[in-house]
């Protein structure tokens, strides 16, 4: 343990040394980041992962590419978010689904179906269902259970992802937490604590899906992975994936909670 800490310190030291050098394309370790052996480290990192596409508020054009064994399709969408509680995502194309939109406001999730002109509230068992035909679930969108609340975590050096060394946060559900995963590994790059990957395990501790982050780019005050990909592992869906490709993203806009209303959902 002592050697690992020493190693950590060394790594951190070299990372801060790097900061003195001209930009290498990697962002720096944030100034307020706790050290990996600090009890607050995991929480800090998890918040950072959660907020990577969010900032205080955000607006983005996203292309969602879904590939399954049977079909492959692309949808383009426009998304707004404010803090953790509010987001609104609307389909721009294809034409047949244009206008279909999802609203998350506080603890509620609604989907507006443009074809039928109805809004439905997603709740209960349907939270685990696929969101807009992708490999994401409605629950992923809600992140109703914050990882830090429901899991115990430990920090250890993770695998190299894209040649970059990572920290792995190993999350194990608290005994009484109602969660779908048996374990979640969150990998963040050691250099800047940005997300590199996530691995989700089922109750038998078999990895069942993974999320990867690519194409980091500096947008305003944030470093953002412009592409993320969710792939189911093992079983029938092996080889399928959903990719979210951020075209344009801007942060810290002037958005009010009142923007995220049912009437906005239906009239966008």
């Amino acid at each position: 343990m002592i050697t690992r800490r020493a190693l950590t310190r060394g790594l951190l030291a070299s990372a801060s040394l790097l900061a003195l050098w001209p930009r290498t394309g990697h962002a720096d370790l944030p100034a307020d980041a706790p050290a990996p052996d600090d009890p607050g480290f995991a929480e800090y990192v998890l918040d950072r992962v959660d907020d990577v596409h969010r900032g205080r508020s955000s607006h983005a054009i996203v292309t969602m590419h879904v590939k399954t064994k049977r079909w492959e399709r692309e949808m383009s969408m426009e998304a707004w978010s404010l803090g953790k509680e509010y987001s609104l995502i609307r389909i721009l194309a294809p034409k047949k689904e244009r206008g279909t939109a999802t609203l998350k406001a506080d603890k509620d999730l609604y989907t507006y179906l443009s074809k039928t002109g109805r809004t439905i509230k997603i709740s209960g068992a349907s939270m685990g269902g696929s969101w807009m035909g992708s490999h994401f679930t409605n629950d992923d969108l809600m992140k109703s259970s914050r990882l830090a609340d429901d899991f115990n975590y430990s920090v250890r050096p993770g695998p190299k992802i894209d040649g970059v060394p990572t920290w792995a946060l190993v999350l194990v559900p608290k005994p009484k937490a109602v969660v779908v995963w048996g374990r979640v590994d969150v990998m963040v790059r050691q250099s800047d604590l940005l997300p590199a990957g996530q691995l989700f395990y089922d109750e038998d501790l078999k990895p069942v899906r993974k999320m990867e982050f690519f194409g980091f780019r500096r947008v305003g005050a944030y470093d953002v992975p412009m592409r993320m990909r969710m792939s189911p592992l093992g079983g029938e869906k092996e080889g399928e994936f959903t990719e979210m490709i951020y075209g344009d993203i801007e942060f810290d806009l002037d958005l009010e909670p009142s923007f995220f209303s049912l009437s906005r959902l239906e009239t966008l």
Partner: protein
Amino acid sequence: MLDDLRFAWRNVWRNTRRSVVTISATALALFVMIAYTGMVNGYLAGMKANIIDLDVGEAQAFAEGYREKPSLYTVIEEPEAMVIALEREGFKVAPRLLGTGLGAATDNSAGIQMIGIDVDRDREVTKIAGELKSGAWLSADDDGVVLGWRLADNLGLEVGGELVVLSQGADGSMANEVYPVRGILKGIGGLDRVGVFMTQDAFRELMVLDRGVHQIILRTPPGVSLDAATAQADGFAPDGTRVSSWRELRPSIASMLDASEAAMQVMGVIVYLAVGIVILNAMLMAVFERVRELGVLKAIGYPPGRVLLLVLLETAIQTGVAIVLGVLLAIPVNYAMTHQGLDLSALGNISVMGVAFDPVWRSRVDLSTYTGPIITLVVIVGLAVIYPALKAAFVRPLDALRS
């Protein structure tokens, strides 16, 4: 012989009270056996009929792999030839489309199981069209849907309301549509909570599924055994499609039925045993009370064979009268239990292992409901009377007179 018969008849009525007690005990026992047999048969047949008529049919065809892992894409590709061939063989056949999705009303949503049916053919294979709590069953020229009652309850929907369905089409598109609620079913079992019945056309349009079906429900031709009919139907199935009987499809219910049948038989044996002991007792009393009398017969030269014959004849007369009385008693009760039945709906909606039961318990009665218990009764009486009859036949006159 005729003398013996007349003698036996006189003997029977010599002690009227004793004979009346024996006869009524026997008649009552027969009545209980007949009524019990009818009720058990009705209970078992009713359970089976509910499973077959409302849910499974006698057999079903699926594409291989569908039952293990239901998928919109696992279809019987070309069911038409099979359907035509089976119908020619006297089967009744109804293809169905199956899919899952999300059903929503104003404030609520719930997971649903969609069943797309061929309205005309389906009417031939299931009785579900008659099981409506309110509203009307599907019609081929109407886009209304019919819901399970619990689903309707959970979503707060009534006939005339609107159900929004959200799913994923076969091409990956977001399948969504609004359907008027045309009817709500009574309890039919597993589909109460999730079932949404719609026409095949509506299903195909919603799910963008042009061809193939997921399930074919079969009713076998009358008079053919379940196994034989299943095997025959399987012979007509295209490659990659399997036909399974309801026993294979619902093994737990099939074994539950077998278990209840066995339990009923055990109960039956107990009832019959109890009856046997009552009769044995009556016979023993009837003979032993008359040991002196029979001893006199022996003393005046009656051979043992004639005494034996006499006792057997007396028993036969009593049993004959008892059978007539027992049957006369059973007929009205059976009539009421088949036509009116025993209404158990006060106990609530009865459902066992996902199968709804008719809350009215009806007997099932045919000739064997009577002949079975009667034959059993005669055998029991025969066995019960042998010992006292032999005892009477071979009693030593002196011993008998002295006692």
